[in-house]
């Protein structure tokens, strides 16, 4: 056995036995460092004659490569073992809870108003607004309810001590209808608007709160008639409830600001103790529920809004937004809407990303 063989055998054995990276490094220095034994052998090659070098070089070169390779392999093995040991010590109990990220919500009233805006945008209705602290004239007189009109008494109006610029007192609007007048005066005709917002009546029980939300619709054009009103309401309710079998029943009624006036009932069934819209109210197990008021805009109202009633006519309707929300999303106590109870808001509120769109359906499914 030659010298190189002896050295190789010894080196490989010791490398294999190296227990840690430090021991391995010491061996590298011992064999391949500047003063290393194998380095010394390599240096002897320079002093040899050509023939001797030709004879001995391959063995010495092989020795260097063999030892270098063994060192690298051992290092990789030691590193892998070290990583494995570290990973074994780093185990996390991932059943522990992650940090909370608070989940915010959009109020049902806002959600429903966004849904309505989306549906009516498709029908070409813009969204209009008006003041809630309103002039008696816009809330009543211009809507064909002069001072002595009995219908005024049915409005349970909240008043302020302040005199209104156009007569009477300032008041809290009892309906969104004054926005009809303001819109016609500001924009003339033709006109298609919806006007959502807060309205106020001095009334309080499980189904009435002194503040609630309404949405007003108004179409003024040349040849608009009751049939258009019916279609618009059907279309809107079908789109809103995402249900084809919404059946409406129109009943002649009376509002001072419309003529003819129509009250609109919608058919429902009782399912699991709750009213579910759909079907004719005359069908077995069904009933009719009063949902909204509407009619052809009274000529006097058109006239008081500065338009010529011989040229322009149209329809208007009003519906409770809170009521629509309750019917669609199943809340049963209106008062909870305005309490700010975070438990209620978390339960009935909507994700920020439930943005109503026509392509996805305006409603947010439970």
């Amino acid at each position, binding site marked *: 056995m030659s010298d190189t063989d002896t050295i190789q055998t010894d080196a490989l054995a010791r490398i294999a036995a190296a227990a840690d990276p430090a021991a391995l490094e010491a061996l590298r220095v011992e064999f391949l460092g500047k003063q290393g034994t194998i380095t010394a052998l390599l240096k002897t090659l320079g002093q040899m004659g050509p023939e001797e070098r030709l004879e001995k070089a391959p063995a010495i070169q092989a020795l260097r490569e063999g030892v270098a390779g063994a060192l690298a392999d051992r290092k990789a093995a030691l590193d892998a073992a070290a990583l494995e040991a570290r990973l074994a010590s780093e185990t996390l109990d991932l059943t522990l809870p992650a940090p909370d990220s608070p989940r915010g919500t959009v109020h049902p009233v806002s959600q429903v108003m966004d849904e309505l805006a989306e549906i009516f945008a498709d029908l070409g209705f813009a969204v209009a607004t008006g003041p809630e*602290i309103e002039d008696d004239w816009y809330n009543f007189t211009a809507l064909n309810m002069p001072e002595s009109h009995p219908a005024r008494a049915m409005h349970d109006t909240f008043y302020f001590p302040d005199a209104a610029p156009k007569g009477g007192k300032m008041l809290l609007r009892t309906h969104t209808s004054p926005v009809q007048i303001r819109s016609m005066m500001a924009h003339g005709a033709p006109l298609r608007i919806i006007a959502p917002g*807060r309205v106020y009546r001095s009334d309080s029980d499980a189904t009435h709160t002194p503040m609630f939300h309404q949405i007003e619709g108004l179409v003024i054009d040349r040849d608009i008639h009751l049939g258009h009103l*019916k279609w618009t309401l059907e279309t809107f309710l079908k789109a809103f409830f995402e249900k084809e079998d919404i059946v409406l029943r129109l009943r002649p009624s009376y509002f001072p600001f419309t003529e003819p*006036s129509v009250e609109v009932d919608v058919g429902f069934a009782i399912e699991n103790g709750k009213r579910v819209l759909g079907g004719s109210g005359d069908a077995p197990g069904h009933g009719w529920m009063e949902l909204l008021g509407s009619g052809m805009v009274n000529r006097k109202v058109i006239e008081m809004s500065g338009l010529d009633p011989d040229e322009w006519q149209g329809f208007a309707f009003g519906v409770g937004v809170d009521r629509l929300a309750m019917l669609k999303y199943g809340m049963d106590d209106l008062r909870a809407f305005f309490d700010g109870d975070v438990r209620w808001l978390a339960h009935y509120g909507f994700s920020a990303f439930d943005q109503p769109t026509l392509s996805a359906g305006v409603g947010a499914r439970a």
Partner: protein
Amino acid sequence: MKFSLEWLKYFLDTDASVAEISATLNAIGIEVEGIEDPADKLAGFRVARVLTARPHPDADKLQVLTVDTGEGDPLQVVCGAPNARAGLVGVLGTAGAVVPANGMVLKQSAIRGQESNGMMCSTRELELGDDHDGIIELPEDAPVGTPFAQYQGASPVFDVAITPNRPDCMGVYGIARDLAAAGLGTLKPLRDDKIEGTFPCPVEIRTDDPDGCPAFYGRVIRGVKNGPSPEWMQARLKAAGQRPISALVDITNYMMLAFGRPAHVYDLAKLTGPVVARRAQDGEQVLALNEKTYTLDRTMTVIADEAGVHDIAGIMGGEHSSVQPETTDVLLEIAYFNPETIGVTGRKLGLATDARTRFERGVDPAWLDGGLDGLTSLIQRLCGGEASHVMRAGSPPSVAKVVQYHPELTQKLGGVAVDEAEQRRILAALDFTVSDDWQVTVPLRRHDVEGAPDIVEEVVRIHGIDKVASVPLPRGEGVARPTATPQQQIERRLRRAAAAMGLNEAVTWSFISEREAAAVGGGRWVLDNPISEDLKVMRPSLLPGLLSAVQRNMDRGATSVRLFEIGRRYLEDGEHPTLVGVLAGERVARGWSQGKAAPFDAFDAKSLCQALLAEAGAPVDKLMVMEPIGDVYHPGQAATLRLGPKNAIASFGAIHPATLKAFGIDVPVVAFGIHLDAIPARKSAGFARPHFAPPPLQAVTRDFAFLVPADLPAGDLLRAVKGADKANIVDARIFDLFEGQGVPEGQKSLAVEVTLQPGETSYKEADLKAIADRVVAAAGKLGGELRG
């Protein structure tokens, strides 16, 4: 308004079922709110005859009866009524029947050991009256075995809502007329009650207030005998919800409910001198029939004699001259009052009566004589007496409106074409007169009909509004355009952004209490007639409502509340859209990883405020952080964000402990508010963004630590550093703040990381040195000194 089927059929000849009548009423605009059939309540009760009665062996006050029910063997019944006796015909409830008054289900039982198979009933138990002294006694010949409901002639009762424009339907006859027009039967002709009278009216009748009382007709009836009204009238009145009182009173109520025609009957013996319609004097008083005294003023019309006021005209009669059981001579009054005057008087006095409801909406001006004769006839038939001639003062409106109509209008306005002949038939059935060229004369009683659209309504509602077909609204050309205003878009965007940031949207009352308003400096708009003291002042800020919501949530055991609201503040100069957020309690609950809970602090509010401002398109970088306004916030932990020194668009910070105390909150609360209408509108109108290409060379950062005066706002230093070399410095941020050991008293150390963006060529040492010098110089101007 309630009426029985039996009463309706007195005026309307029809075979229609209750369901058909109900459907038709709804279809023509008379909303049916309910239908009650007394027969349902009386199921299981029948006419029965007591055959024998013997004392109960073990109870002094009870008897054991045998009762003939008309079928099978007689039943044994134990009864406690003192009037129970052999031969009595009464009403027996058998097993299974439910006693209307108390809901008790009758069953076979033993009472003190004696078998009992039912109950002999009192009127009170069957809810037919108040009598409970004994069991009902029917006439001897009442047919035994007949269901009691059938014997009694119980008739289904309709409860309908009459819209305020239809006073003519505030009487059964008017409803019958509408139903007949809709094809549900034939209106029966009214009795011809023309009564001339046999002697001159002995009382002078005058109207000194032709404006408030244009017409006042009257006559005297002598020698009447007041007493209970007959069964048929009592039954109709009871079905309508009126308690029978005496024949004379019942007759006036009957006239009102049957024909919508209020009238008044005075006890002639209590009147002195002429009976006059006049204005009341200021301060004049009257004791009304409801036993309350009303103080009147000169806007109110009254009926008075020499002694004083006897009637608040058209609203309520006076107690003094009201008819009594012993009354023998009466004065009848039928008048036409000005609807507006009645409304004003009624509102002023806060007095709502059936008479006012009808006069205020307008009774039939053409039916004064008819009404008076009808009233006279009823009194004479039920109470006897001799009638005087009629005395008439003034005259009711008599000029009928004539409306130019065109039959095509049903299509143009109503969306349904109706055959011309059918239109004529409908209008005639409703007493309109139609000329060949469609001049429509409106019956005087129809105060609501003013123009052609009203005629359309009449025709369409009788023809059937369900025949109006749906017609799509014409659609605008092209694609649908956006319809929301910029303000609406901001609100929608912020709402969803705030929710995405973890806040729950609340909707709180627009009105708050004076106490809540005081916490934010008081409100400008205070209601005259609030529904409660808690809902009285229009909020000048959204904060009180949200703080109260925080308090309620905390009281319910919440530990962390994040709420926001988008709504209006109500100020002198109008209504301002606003977003307010409140963060209360714990930002982070105690946990396994970080230990103790951490409360919210002012920077949480700042962070949300700035993020939302950015969403709203506000120039967040340009906003100055300045001192807070008002004393809602902690004076040292709150700020306003301003576009200019006087233009605050937002605020944020910790709520003042005194404010929290006022709201009963004992956890820290931070809040922020954004004045949505103060955010400047976006300038850019297009979609394209400004050009941008990522710079080819990498940015470098350099750190600087400055010793600055302790009271120097960090934001000032940051602004100075950023502005030191705008060509190179693209960002700067503070990464350390230190006071204490190593930092001289009165100073603090602020460390800033500055990001530099090279342009075409990389920085050389000299470039970096020059930039650093400029940064140090800028800090120096604020008293900053580079730390070694």
